[in-house]
Protein backbone atom coordinates (compact mmCIF):
# COMPACT_ATOMS: atom_id res chain seq x y z
CA UNK A 1 0.00 0.00 0.00
CA UNK A 2 1.42 3.35 -0.96
CA UNK A 3 2.00 5.94 1.72
CA UNK A 4 -0.90 8.02 0.43
CA UNK A 5 -3.29 5.07 0.32
CA UNK A 6 -2.19 4.04 3.74
CA UNK A 7 -2.81 7.53 5.06
CA UNK A 8 -6.29 7.59 3.57
CA UNK A 9 -7.04 4.22 5.13
CA UNK A 10 -6.02 5.54 8.51
CA UNK A 11 -8.09 8.66 8.05
CA UNK A 12 -11.06 6.56 7.07
CA UNK A 13 -10.66 4.54 10.21
CA UNK A 14 -10.43 7.69 12.29
CA UNK A 15 -13.55 9.13 10.74
CA UNK A 16 -15.52 5.96 11.35
CA UNK A 17 -14.35 5.85 14.91
CA UNK A 18 -15.45 9.37 15.60
CA UNK A 19 -18.80 9.21 13.92
CA UNK A 20 -19.68 6.07 15.82
CA UNK A 21 -18.05 7.38 19.00
CA UNK A 22 -16.07 4.26 19.39
CA UNK A 23 -12.93 3.85 21.39
CA UNK A 24 -9.79 2.84 19.62
CA UNK A 25 -6.90 4.25 17.74
CA UNK A 26 -7.69 7.79 16.90
CA UNK A 27 -6.43 11.27 17.03
CA UNK A 28 -7.18 13.67 19.80
CA UNK A 29 -10.81 14.46 19.27
CA UNK A 30 -13.74 16.38 20.65
CA UNK A 31 -15.66 19.48 19.80
CA UNK A 32 -19.18 20.50 19.47
CA UNK A 33 -21.80 19.47 17.02
CA UNK A 34 -23.95 22.01 15.32
CA UNK A 35 -27.58 21.70 16.39
CA UNK A 36 -28.81 20.45 13.07
CA UNK A 37 -26.05 17.89 12.82
CA UNK A 38 -25.40 18.88 9.23
CA UNK A 39 -22.03 20.35 9.93
CA UNK A 40 -19.84 18.92 12.57
CA UNK A 41 -16.29 19.15 13.60
CA UNK A 42 -15.27 15.57 13.30
CA UNK A 43 -11.84 15.32 14.80
CA UNK A 44 -8.55 16.89 15.51
CA UNK A 45 -5.47 14.79 15.84
CA UNK A 46 -2.65 16.21 17.87
CA UNK A 47 1.07 16.05 18.33
CA UNK A 48 2.55 18.04 21.17
CA UNK A 49 6.28 18.20 20.98
CA UNK A 50 8.65 20.26 23.06
CA UNK A 51 12.20 20.86 22.02
CA UNK A 52 14.74 23.50 22.94
CA UNK A 53 12.18 25.69 24.62
CA UNK A 54 9.61 25.59 21.84
CA UNK A 55 6.35 23.80 21.74
CA UNK A 56 5.48 22.35 18.36
CA UNK A 57 1.78 21.75 18.17
CA UNK A 58 0.54 19.91 15.13
CA UNK A 59 -3.11 19.12 14.67
CA UNK A 60 -5.42 18.38 11.80
CA UNK A 61 -8.91 19.69 11.28
CA UNK A 62 -11.31 17.45 9.43
CA UNK A 63 -14.94 17.95 8.75
CA UNK A 64 -18.11 16.17 7.84
CA UNK A 65 -21.37 17.44 6.42
CA UNK A 66 -22.66 19.83 3.86
CA UNK A 67 -23.12 23.01 5.84
CA UNK A 68 -21.45 26.29 5.14
CA UNK A 69 -18.82 26.57 7.81
CA UNK A 70 -17.62 25.21 11.06
CA UNK A 71 -14.75 25.90 13.33
CA UNK A 72 -13.16 25.34 16.64
CA UNK A 73 -11.42 27.08 19.49
CA UNK A 74 -8.29 25.68 21.01
CA UNK A 75 -6.68 26.83 24.24
CA UNK A 76 -2.98 27.52 23.76
CA UNK A 77 -0.30 27.77 26.44
CA UNK A 78 1.32 30.81 24.85
CA UNK A 79 1.47 33.10 21.87
CA UNK A 80 2.72 31.23 18.81
CA UNK A 81 5.57 32.74 16.87
CA UNK A 82 4.60 30.84 13.79
CA UNK A 83 1.36 29.41 12.43
CA UNK A 84 1.78 27.44 9.26
CA UNK A 85 0.50 24.51 7.32
CA UNK A 86 1.56 21.29 8.90
CA UNK A 87 3.28 18.44 7.20
CA UNK A 88 1.38 15.87 5.24
CA UNK A 89 2.11 12.74 7.19
CA UNK A 90 3.34 13.59 10.66
CA UNK A 91 0.12 12.68 12.47
CA UNK A 92 -0.51 9.57 10.42
CA UNK A 93 3.06 8.43 10.95
CA UNK A 94 2.64 8.74 14.69
CA UNK A 95 -0.56 6.73 14.58
CA UNK A 96 1.25 4.02 12.69
CA UNK A 97 3.99 4.03 15.28
CA UNK A 98 1.59 2.94 18.00
CA UNK A 99 -0.91 1.06 15.87
CA UNK A 100 1.12 -0.66 13.17
CA UNK A 101 -1.12 -1.74 10.27
CA UNK A 102 -1.62 -5.47 10.02
CA UNK A 103 0.10 -6.78 6.94
CA UNK A 104 -2.93 -8.52 5.51
CA UNK A 105 -5.34 -7.73 2.74
CA UNK A 106 -8.02 -6.95 5.31
CA UNK A 107 -5.93 -4.11 6.66
CA UNK A 108 -6.71 -1.99 3.64
CA UNK A 109 -10.37 -1.68 4.68
CA UNK A 110 -9.44 -0.36 7.21
CA UNK A 111 -12.20 33.49 33.64
CA UNK A 112 -15.07 35.20 32.45
CA UNK A 113 -13.80 38.73 32.63
CA UNK A 114 -15.50 41.43 30.65
CA UNK A 115 -13.83 43.33 27.89
CA UNK A 116 -12.78 42.49 24.38
CA UNK A 117 -10.51 39.78 23.20
CA UNK A 118 -7.42 40.99 21.37
CA UNK A 119 -6.70 39.54 17.98
CA UNK A 120 -2.99 38.81 17.99
CA UNK A 121 -2.58 37.04 14.70
CA UNK A 122 -4.71 36.06 11.74
CA UNK A 123 -3.70 33.83 8.91
CA UNK A 124 -5.06 31.27 6.49
CA UNK A 125 -4.08 27.69 5.94
CA UNK A 126 -5.94 26.38 2.93
CA UNK A 127 -9.63 26.77 3.77
CA UNK A 128 -8.94 27.40 7.44
CA UNK A 129 -9.01 30.92 8.82
CA UNK A 130 -6.92 30.93 11.95
CA UNK A 131 -7.11 33.61 14.61
CA UNK A 132 -4.95 33.75 17.72
CA UNK A 133 -6.80 35.55 20.49
CA UNK A 134 -5.85 36.90 23.86
CA UNK A 135 -8.50 37.40 26.45
CA UNK A 136 -10.42 35.97 29.37
CA UNK A 137 -13.01 33.28 28.94
CA UNK A 138 -15.85 35.76 28.72
CA UNK A 139 -14.08 37.95 26.20
CA UNK A 140 -13.08 35.05 24.00
CA UNK A 141 -16.60 33.69 24.23
CA UNK A 142 -18.00 37.04 23.15
CA UNK A 143 -15.59 37.17 20.24
CA UNK A 144 -16.54 33.66 19.22
CA UNK A 145 -20.23 34.43 19.42
CA UNK A 146 -19.80 37.64 17.43
CA UNK A 147 -17.91 35.70 14.79
CA UNK A 148 -20.53 33.04 14.33
CA UNK A 149 -19.25 30.28 16.55
CA UNK A 150 -21.92 28.26 18.26
CA UNK A 151 -20.96 27.80 21.88
CA UNK A 152 -22.44 24.92 23.80
CA UNK A 153 -23.68 25.45 27.37
CA UNK A 154 -20.53 24.09 28.94
CA UNK A 155 -18.35 26.47 26.93
CA UNK A 156 -18.43 29.43 29.37
CA UNK A 157 -17.15 27.32 32.25
CA UNK A 158 -14.48 25.61 30.13
CA UNK A 159 -13.28 28.87 28.61
CA UNK A 160 -12.96 30.36 32.08
CA UNK A 161 -11.16 27.23 33.25
CA UNK A 162 -8.53 27.52 30.56
CA UNK A 163 -8.28 31.28 30.79
CA UNK A 164 -7.09 30.83 34.37
CA UNK A 165 -4.03 29.07 32.94
CA UNK A 166 -3.51 30.90 29.68
CA UNK A 167 -5.29 33.78 28.01
CA UNK A 168 -4.31 32.58 24.55
CA UNK A 169 -6.78 30.75 22.31
CA UNK A 170 -6.77 29.68 18.71
CA UNK A 171 -9.99 30.02 16.76
CA UNK A 172 -10.17 28.05 13.57
CA UNK A 173 -12.89 28.71 11.07
CA UNK A 174 -13.26 26.21 8.30
CA UNK A 175 -15.05 27.41 5.20
CA UNK A 176 -16.55 24.27 3.73
CA UNK A 177 -17.40 25.97 0.45
CA UNK A 178 -13.83 27.08 0.01
CA UNK A 179 -12.63 23.63 0.91
CA UNK A 180 -14.77 22.14 -1.81
CA UNK A 181 -13.53 24.77 -4.24
CA UNK A 182 -10.02 23.67 -3.42
CA UNK A 183 -10.95 20.11 -4.19
CA UNK A 184 -10.87 18.89 -0.64
CA UNK A 185 -12.95 15.78 -0.11
CA UNK A 186 -15.04 14.51 2.75
CA UNK A 187 -12.70 13.49 5.52
CA UNK A 188 -9.68 15.32 4.22
CA UNK A 189 -7.77 17.03 6.94
CA UNK A 190 -5.91 20.29 7.03
CA UNK A 191 -2.86 20.01 9.25
CA UNK A 192 -1.77 23.08 11.17
CA UNK A 193 1.57 23.55 12.88
CA UNK A 194 2.03 26.11 15.63
CA UNK A 195 5.38 26.95 17.14
CA UNK A 196 5.06 28.31 20.65
CA UNK A 197 7.89 29.46 22.93
CA UNK A 198 7.12 27.69 26.15
CA UNK A 199 9.24 27.08 29.23
CA UNK A 200 6.77 24.68 30.81
CA UNK A 201 4.61 22.65 28.47
CA UNK A 202 1.11 21.50 29.23
CA UNK A 203 -1.62 19.52 27.51
CA UNK A 204 -5.25 20.44 28.12
CA UNK A 205 -7.42 17.35 28.16
CA UNK A 206 -10.63 18.67 29.69
CA UNK A 207 -11.32 20.52 26.48
CA UNK A 208 -11.99 17.13 24.92
CA UNK A 209 -15.24 17.02 26.86
CA UNK A 210 -16.56 20.22 25.37
CA UNK A 211 -20.09 19.75 24.18
CA UNK A 212 -20.25 16.21 25.50
CA UNK A 213 -22.81 14.79 27.89
CA UNK A 214 -21.30 13.33 31.06
CA UNK A 215 -21.79 9.78 29.82
CA UNK A 216 -20.53 10.41 26.30
CA UNK A 217 -17.37 8.47 25.57
CA UNK A 218 -14.26 10.47 24.83
CA UNK A 219 -11.57 8.77 22.83
CA UNK A 220 -8.35 10.48 21.93
CA UNK A 221 -4.73 9.83 21.21
CA UNK A 222 -2.20 12.38 22.36
CA UNK A 223 1.36 12.03 21.18
CA UNK A 224 4.01 13.76 23.18
CA UNK A 225 7.57 14.12 21.96
CA UNK A 226 10.07 15.54 24.39
CA UNK A 227 13.78 15.97 24.62
CA UNK A 228 13.82 13.93 27.79
CA UNK A 229 11.68 11.30 29.39
CA UNK A 230 8.72 13.09 30.98
CA UNK A 231 6.91 12.69 34.23
CA UNK A 232 3.28 12.87 33.29
CA UNK A 233 0.25 13.36 35.50
CA UNK A 234 -3.10 12.35 34.07
CA UNK A 235 -6.73 12.27 35.11
CA UNK A 236 -7.15 9.48 37.62
CA UNK A 237 -9.43 7.44 35.42
CA UNK A 238 -9.72 7.08 31.70
CA UNK A 239 -6.30 8.18 30.54
CA UNK A 240 -3.24 6.02 30.47
CA UNK A 241 0.27 6.11 29.16
CA UNK A 242 0.09 3.38 26.56
CA UNK A 243 3.59 3.87 25.28
CA UNK A 244 6.67 5.47 26.76
CA UNK A 245 9.94 4.84 25.02
CA UNK A 246 12.74 6.47 23.12
CA UNK A 247 11.45 7.45 19.72
CA UNK A 248 12.97 5.28 17.05
CA UNK A 249 15.42 6.85 14.67
CA UNK A 250 13.16 5.71 11.85
CA UNK A 251 10.18 7.55 13.31
CA UNK A 252 12.18 10.71 13.89
CA UNK A 253 13.63 10.51 10.41
CA UNK A 254 10.18 10.15 8.89
CA UNK A 255 8.87 13.09 10.90
CA UNK A 256 11.90 15.21 10.06
CA UNK A 257 11.29 14.65 6.36
CA UNK A 258 7.82 16.18 6.59
CA UNK A 259 7.06 19.81 5.88
CA UNK A 260 8.05 22.13 8.71
CA UNK A 261 9.47 19.33 10.83
CA UNK A 262 13.17 19.86 10.22
CA UNK A 263 13.55 20.88 13.85
CA UNK A 264 13.14 17.27 14.98
CA UNK A 265 16.39 16.27 16.66
CA UNK A 266 18.10 12.91 16.45
CA UNK A 267 16.79 11.72 19.78
CA UNK A 268 13.48 12.28 21.49
CA UNK A 269 11.24 10.52 23.93
CA UNK A 270 7.86 9.33 22.66
CA UNK A 271 4.91 9.18 25.03
CA UNK A 272 1.59 7.98 23.74
CA UNK A 273 -1.38 8.80 25.95
CA UNK A 274 -4.60 6.95 25.18
CA UNK A 275 -7.81 8.46 26.46
CA UNK A 276 -10.93 6.36 26.61
CA UNK A 277 -13.50 7.33 29.22
CA UNK A 278 -16.85 8.99 29.77
CA UNK A 279 -16.58 12.75 29.52
CA UNK A 280 -17.38 13.06 33.22
CA UNK A 281 -14.08 11.40 34.11
CA UNK A 282 -11.86 13.66 32.03
CA UNK A 283 -11.75 16.24 34.76
CA UNK A 284 -8.12 17.27 34.64
CA UNK A 285 -5.35 18.03 32.21
CA UNK A 286 -2.12 16.36 31.33
CA UNK A 287 0.64 17.83 33.40
CA UNK A 288 4.34 17.37 32.97
CA UNK A 289 6.14 17.56 36.24
CA UNK A 290 9.43 16.82 37.79
CA UNK A 291 10.11 13.35 39.07
CA UNK A 292 8.09 12.36 42.12
CA UNK A 293 10.96 10.65 43.87
CA UNK A 294 13.44 12.83 45.74
CA UNK A 295 16.54 10.91 44.60
CA UNK A 296 15.61 11.35 40.97
CA UNK A 297 14.79 15.01 41.56
CA UNK A 298 18.15 15.68 43.13
CA UNK A 299 19.91 14.09 40.20
CA UNK A 300 17.99 15.70 37.41
CA UNK A 301 20.05 17.53 34.83
CA UNK A 302 19.11 20.49 32.71
CA UNK A 303 16.74 19.71 29.86
CA UNK A 304 19.20 20.57 27.12
CA UNK A 305 20.91 19.49 25.01
CA UNK A 306 18.81 16.53 23.80
CA UNK A 307 21.89 14.52 23.04
CA UNK A 308 22.17 13.72 26.72
CA UNK A 309 19.37 11.23 26.21
CA UNK A 310 20.98 7.86 26.06
CA UNK A 311 18.37 5.21 25.22
CA UNK A 312 18.44 4.01 21.67
CA UNK A 313 16.28 0.91 21.81
CA UNK A 314 12.94 0.78 20.09
CA UNK A 315 9.87 -1.20 20.91
CA UNK A 316 6.85 -1.49 18.70
CA UNK A 317 4.73 -3.48 21.11
CA UNK A 318 2.23 -1.47 23.13
CA UNK A 319 2.97 -1.52 26.81
CA UNK A 320 1.02 -0.28 29.75
CA UNK A 321 4.00 -0.27 32.05
CA UNK A 322 6.80 2.18 31.49
CA UNK A 323 10.18 0.78 30.56
CA UNK A 324 12.70 0.72 33.31
CA UNK A 325 15.24 2.65 31.31
CA UNK A 326 16.34 5.52 33.45
CA UNK A 327 16.82 8.63 31.38
CA UNK A 328 17.60 12.19 32.30
CA UNK A 329 14.75 14.17 33.72
CA UNK A 330 13.26 17.33 32.38
CA UNK A 331 13.19 20.26 34.73
CA UNK A 332 9.53 21.02 34.39
CA UNK A 333 7.21 21.95 37.19
CA UNK A 334 3.48 21.24 37.11
CA UNK A 335 1.36 24.07 35.85
CA UNK A 336 -2.01 22.68 36.73
CA UNK A 337 -3.00 21.18 40.00
CA UNK A 338 -5.87 19.05 38.85
CA UNK A 339 -8.04 17.41 41.46
CA UNK A 340 -7.40 13.87 40.42
CA UNK A 341 -3.93 13.54 39.10
CA UNK A 342 -1.67 10.59 39.46
CA UNK A 343 1.85 10.09 38.44
CA UNK A 344 1.96 7.57 35.68
CA UNK A 345 5.53 7.91 34.68
CA UNK A 346 8.66 8.42 36.63
CA UNK A 347 11.13 10.84 35.08
CA UNK A 348 10.85 14.15 33.36
CA UNK A 349 9.87 15.48 29.97
CA UNK A 350 7.63 18.02 28.43
CA UNK A 351 4.53 18.44 26.51
CA UNK A 352 1.64 20.17 25.00
CA UNK A 353 -1.71 19.95 23.87
CA UNK A 354 -4.69 18.21 22.66
CA UNK A 355 -8.05 19.81 22.65
CA UNK A 356 -11.04 20.90 21.03
CA UNK A 357 -13.82 22.82 20.80
CA UNK A 358 -16.57 24.70 19.59
CA UNK A 359 -18.49 23.97 16.55
CA UNK A 360 -19.82 26.83 14.75
CA UNK A 361 -22.35 27.68 12.33
CA UNK A 362 -23.17 30.85 10.56
CA UNK A 363 -24.47 33.70 12.62
CA UNK A 364 -27.94 33.17 13.90
CA UNK A 365 -28.24 29.75 12.40
CA UNK A 366 -28.40 28.03 15.73
CA UNK A 367 -31.36 30.03 16.81
CA UNK A 368 -33.13 29.55 13.54
CA UNK A 369 -32.57 25.85 13.54
CA UNK A 370 -33.81 25.06 16.97
CA UNK A 371 -37.27 26.41 16.66
Amino acid at each position, binding site marked *: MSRMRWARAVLGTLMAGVVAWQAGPAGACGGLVA*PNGAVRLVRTTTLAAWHAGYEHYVTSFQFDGDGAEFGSIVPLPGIPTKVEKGGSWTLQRLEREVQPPVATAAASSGV*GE*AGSATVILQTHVDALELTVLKGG*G*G*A*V*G*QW*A*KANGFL*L*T*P*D*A*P*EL*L*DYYARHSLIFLAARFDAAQARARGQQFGDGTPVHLTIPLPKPWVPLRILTL*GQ*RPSDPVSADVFVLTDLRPTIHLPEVGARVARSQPASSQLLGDLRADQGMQWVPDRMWLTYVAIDAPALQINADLVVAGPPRPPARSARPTPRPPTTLAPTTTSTAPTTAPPTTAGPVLDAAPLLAGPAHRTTEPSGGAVLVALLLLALCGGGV*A*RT*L*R*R
Partner: protein
Amino acid sequence: MKAGASISGAVMFLLLGVRPAAAPAPIGGPGRIVTVRITIHHSAFSPRHLRVADGSLVAFHVTNTDPIDHELIVGDQATQDRVERGDEPDHHARGQVSVAAGASASTYYVFGGQRWWQFGCHLPGHWAYGMRGTIEVARR
Protein backbone atom coordinates in the same frame (compact mmCIF):
# COMPACT_ATOMS: atom_id res chain seq x y z
CA MET B 1 -16.53 7.07 82.59
CA LYS B 2 -15.38 10.40 81.39
CA ALA B 3 -14.80 8.93 77.99
CA GLY B 4 -18.29 7.45 77.97
CA ALA B 5 -19.82 10.77 78.84
CA SER B 6 -17.86 12.46 76.13
CA ILE B 7 -19.02 9.93 73.56
CA SER B 8 -22.63 10.33 74.68
CA GLY B 9 -22.28 14.06 74.34
CA ALA B 10 -20.83 13.70 70.91
CA VAL B 11 -23.68 11.40 69.86
CA MET B 12 -26.22 13.88 71.20
CA PHE B 13 -24.47 16.66 69.34
CA LEU B 14 -24.54 14.66 66.14
CA LEU B 15 -28.22 13.80 66.59
CA LEU B 16 -29.06 17.42 67.12
CA GLY B 17 -26.81 18.36 64.25
CA VAL B 18 -28.62 16.20 61.72
CA ARG B 19 -32.05 17.51 62.60
CA PRO B 20 -33.74 18.46 59.32
CA ALA B 21 -33.70 22.15 58.64
CA ALA B 22 -37.04 23.86 58.40
CA ALA B 23 -38.13 24.84 54.91
CA PRO B 24 -37.55 28.51 54.20
CA ALA B 25 -40.55 30.71 54.53
CA PRO B 26 -42.23 31.30 51.20
CA ILE B 27 -41.87 34.70 49.67
CA GLY B 28 -44.82 36.76 48.54
CA GLY B 29 -48.46 36.12 49.20
CA PRO B 30 -51.85 36.44 47.55
CA GLY B 31 -51.94 39.65 45.58
CA ARG B 32 -48.42 40.56 46.53
CA ILE B 33 -45.66 41.36 44.05
CA VAL B 34 -42.18 40.13 44.83
CA THR B 35 -39.00 40.53 42.83
CA VAL B 36 -36.60 37.63 42.42
CA ARG B 37 -33.13 38.28 41.03
CA ILE B 38 -31.68 35.33 39.18
CA THR B 39 -28.11 35.20 37.96
CA ILE B 40 -26.95 32.96 35.15
CA HIS B 41 -23.30 31.97 35.30
CA HIS B 42 -21.62 29.07 33.55
CA SER B 43 -25.00 28.00 32.22
CA ALA B 44 -26.51 27.57 35.65
CA PHE B 45 -29.23 29.48 37.49
CA SER B 46 -28.67 30.91 40.93
CA PRO B 47 -30.75 30.35 42.94
CA ARG B 48 -31.95 27.05 41.60
CA HIS B 49 -34.86 26.62 43.96
CA LEU B 50 -37.55 29.09 45.01
CA ARG B 51 -40.43 28.82 47.44
CA VAL B 52 -43.28 31.24 46.89
CA ALA B 53 -46.64 31.71 48.52
CA ASP B 54 -49.73 30.69 46.64
CA GLY B 55 -51.13 33.55 44.58
CA SER B 56 -47.89 35.53 44.41
CA LEU B 57 -46.92 37.56 41.39
CA VAL B 58 -43.21 37.06 40.98
CA ALA B 59 -41.17 39.46 38.87
CA PHE B 60 -38.03 37.73 37.66
CA HIS B 61 -35.02 39.91 36.95
CA VAL B 62 -32.46 37.76 35.16
CA THR B 63 -28.82 38.71 34.65
CA ASN B 64 -26.78 36.68 32.21
CA THR B 65 -23.04 36.83 32.91
CA ASP B 66 -22.16 34.30 30.23
CA PRO B 67 -20.85 35.11 26.75
CA ILE B 68 -23.66 33.04 25.27
CA ASP B 69 -27.39 33.65 25.06
CA HIS B 70 -29.80 32.09 27.50
CA GLU B 71 -33.48 32.25 28.35
CA LEU B 72 -35.78 31.84 31.30
CA ILE B 73 -38.87 29.76 30.77
CA VAL B 74 -41.20 29.43 33.75
CA GLY B 75 -44.07 26.98 33.67
CA ASP B 76 -45.37 23.52 34.33
CA GLN B 77 -43.94 20.35 32.88
CA ALA B 78 -46.13 20.58 29.79
CA THR B 79 -44.77 24.05 29.08
CA GLN B 80 -41.20 22.88 29.48
CA ASP B 81 -41.82 19.94 27.18
CA ARG B 82 -43.41 22.13 24.54
CA VAL B 83 -40.62 24.69 24.55
CA GLU B 84 -37.97 21.98 24.57
CA ARG B 85 -39.49 20.58 21.39
CA GLY B 86 -38.77 23.98 19.96
CA ASP B 87 -41.32 25.55 17.68
CA GLU B 88 -41.29 29.07 19.10
CA PRO B 89 -38.92 31.59 17.49
CA ASP B 90 -38.90 33.89 20.47
CA HIS B 91 -40.43 34.33 23.88
CA HIS B 92 -42.97 36.97 24.73
CA ALA B 93 -45.41 34.97 26.81
CA ARG B 94 -45.78 35.53 30.52
CA GLY B 95 -42.91 33.90 32.38
CA GLN B 96 -40.75 33.57 29.29
CA VAL B 97 -37.87 35.82 28.31
CA SER B 98 -34.71 35.62 26.24
CA VAL B 99 -31.56 36.95 27.88
CA ALA B 100 -28.75 37.89 25.54
CA ALA B 101 -25.13 37.31 26.44
CA GLY B 102 -24.02 39.74 29.10
CA ALA B 103 -27.46 41.32 29.33
CA SER B 104 -30.41 41.42 31.71
CA ALA B 105 -34.11 40.91 31.12
CA SER B 106 -37.31 40.64 33.13
CA THR B 107 -40.56 38.75 33.08
CA TYR B 108 -43.23 37.84 35.59
CA TYR B 109 -45.48 34.96 36.52
CA VAL B 110 -48.43 34.44 38.85
CA PHE B 111 -48.18 31.22 40.80
CA GLY B 112 -51.21 29.28 41.88
CA GLY B 113 -52.85 25.93 41.56
CA GLN B 114 -50.28 23.18 41.45
CA ARG B 115 -47.43 22.92 43.94
CA TRP B 116 -44.39 22.33 41.73
CA TRP B 117 -43.22 24.45 38.84
CA GLN B 118 -40.07 24.54 36.84
CA PHE B 119 -37.89 27.09 35.15
CA GLY B 120 -35.11 26.53 32.70
CA CYS B 121 -33.36 27.36 29.46
CA HIS B 122 -34.25 25.50 26.28
CA LEU B 123 -31.61 26.75 23.89
CA PRO B 124 -30.03 23.74 22.18
CA GLY B 125 -28.53 21.44 24.76
CA HIS B 126 -29.03 23.77 27.71
CA TRP B 127 -31.89 21.90 29.41
CA ALA B 128 -30.05 18.60 29.03
CA TYR B 129 -26.94 20.25 30.43
CA GLY B 130 -28.91 20.84 33.63
CA MET B 131 -29.88 24.44 33.19
CA ARG B 132 -33.08 24.31 35.20
CA GLY B 133 -34.58 24.95 38.59
CA THR B 134 -37.73 24.36 40.61
CA ILE B 135 -40.33 26.54 42.23
CA GLU B 136 -42.45 25.30 45.10
CA VAL B 137 -45.79 26.97 45.76
CA ALA B 138 -46.59 26.93 49.46
CA ARG B 139 -50.22 26.99 50.49
CA ARG B 140 -51.41 28.50 53.72
